């Protein structure tokens, strides 16, 4: 990743990607909320990961993704008419993860997939971290108790719960991989399309 000296074009691109991300967050977020679709956060994060990877391909400078996230979070706060902490933290954390991965590795398909995987895995832990923060560490005992009771009722052993957890992790990692590949390929196609349209 190049050093963070932002020129006019970079600022323009950061603003464009922030507007696109905010539009997606607001439109898709609101529609998913109205339709009461489960795993709303996961669906939104999938698109956020794609947007972050595309943005990195276009700008490729340190701190650009964080700037995009801060503008997106602010636009979302302005549109929602308040400071909603959970979505703001999620947006900033997603960009921070992508920023860190692209800081330590070259921007290519592999790093995009890794970024996608970590962003998606963060969504899985976001809920757990939030619950630990709100309910405290004692909630783990209660969840443990519920898991034991449920496995007793359903006739499952505790190993099945670990299988379920590993399945969740694999599923999120798979979704992250798809987001990484999609982000990388969309960025390449968009660049080609822009070249074609400007030559036209």
């Amino acid at each position, binding site marked *: 990743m190049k050093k963070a000296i932002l020129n006019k074009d970079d*600022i323009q691109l950061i603003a464009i990607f922030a*507007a696109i991300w905010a539009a997606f967050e607001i439109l898709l977020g609101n529609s998913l909320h109205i339709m009461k679709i489960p795993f709303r956060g996961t669906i939104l994060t999938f698109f956020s990961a794609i947007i972050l990877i595309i943005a990195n391909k276009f700008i490729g400078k340190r701190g650009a993704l964080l700037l995009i996230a*801060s503008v997106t979070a602010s*636009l979302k706060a302005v549109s929602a008419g308040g400071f*909603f902490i959970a979505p703001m933290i999620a947006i900033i954390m997603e960009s921070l993860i992508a920023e860190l991965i692209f800081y330590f590795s070259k921007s290519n398909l592999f790093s995009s997939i890794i970024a996608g995987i970590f962003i998606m895995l963060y969504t899985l832990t976001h809920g757990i971290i939030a619950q630990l923060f709100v309910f405290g560490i004692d909630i783990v005992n209660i969840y443990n108790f519920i898991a034991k009771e449920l496995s007793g009722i359903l006739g499952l052993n505790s190993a099945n719960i670990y299988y379920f957890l590993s399945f969740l992790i694999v599923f999120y990692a798979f979704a992250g991989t798809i987001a990484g590949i999609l982000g990388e390929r969309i960025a390449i196609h968009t660049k080609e399309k822009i070249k074609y*349209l400007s030559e036209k």
Partner: protein
Amino acid sequence: MNKTVIKILSLILFVSAFLPFELSSIICSISIFTIIVLKPIILQKVFNKFLIIMILICLVVYPVLSIEKDSAIWIINYSNSSLINGLKIITRAILILLAFNLISIASKDYNIKSFWQKIGLNSFDKIFDISKDLLPSAFDVIKNKFTRNKRQNLKNAFFHPIHFISDILARFIMNSTKNHQNYEQITMRDE
């Protein structure tokens, strides 16, 4: 209520969530009573479906189904220590959620720009203004793609997602760059 008072109240609630249970439970009951009197709408936000389910689990299911049952209400046996443990968890959750809800009320007109500048994002101001101007056209581009030729576009989005999204992005980037350049030229001429 004054915004500074709300901020101080939310801070008190947040801190009291981490105090010993004897103290936090008293503060929790007083704050719930005060909010019922002053602004009951906040309680509606705090006591959402998820919290109600958690209350049922922590205060009913967990004590009743625990193995060591040492107390009873009528014919229902329950574990006293599990009930107290559940009460601790719920008290903490209510206090923290109340504090966050009060903060979001107090920060409704908060100047977000100054917040990001305070933490060192200097270009934020300029980028935010450009993004804010671009947001309506971003809405239009996304909405148009799903309202005009709905069937065809949905088909494209499903079977050729890469071409579909890259087409939206390319056109949006091109248009907004052109519009911004035109706007800058006009403002420079005016100056």
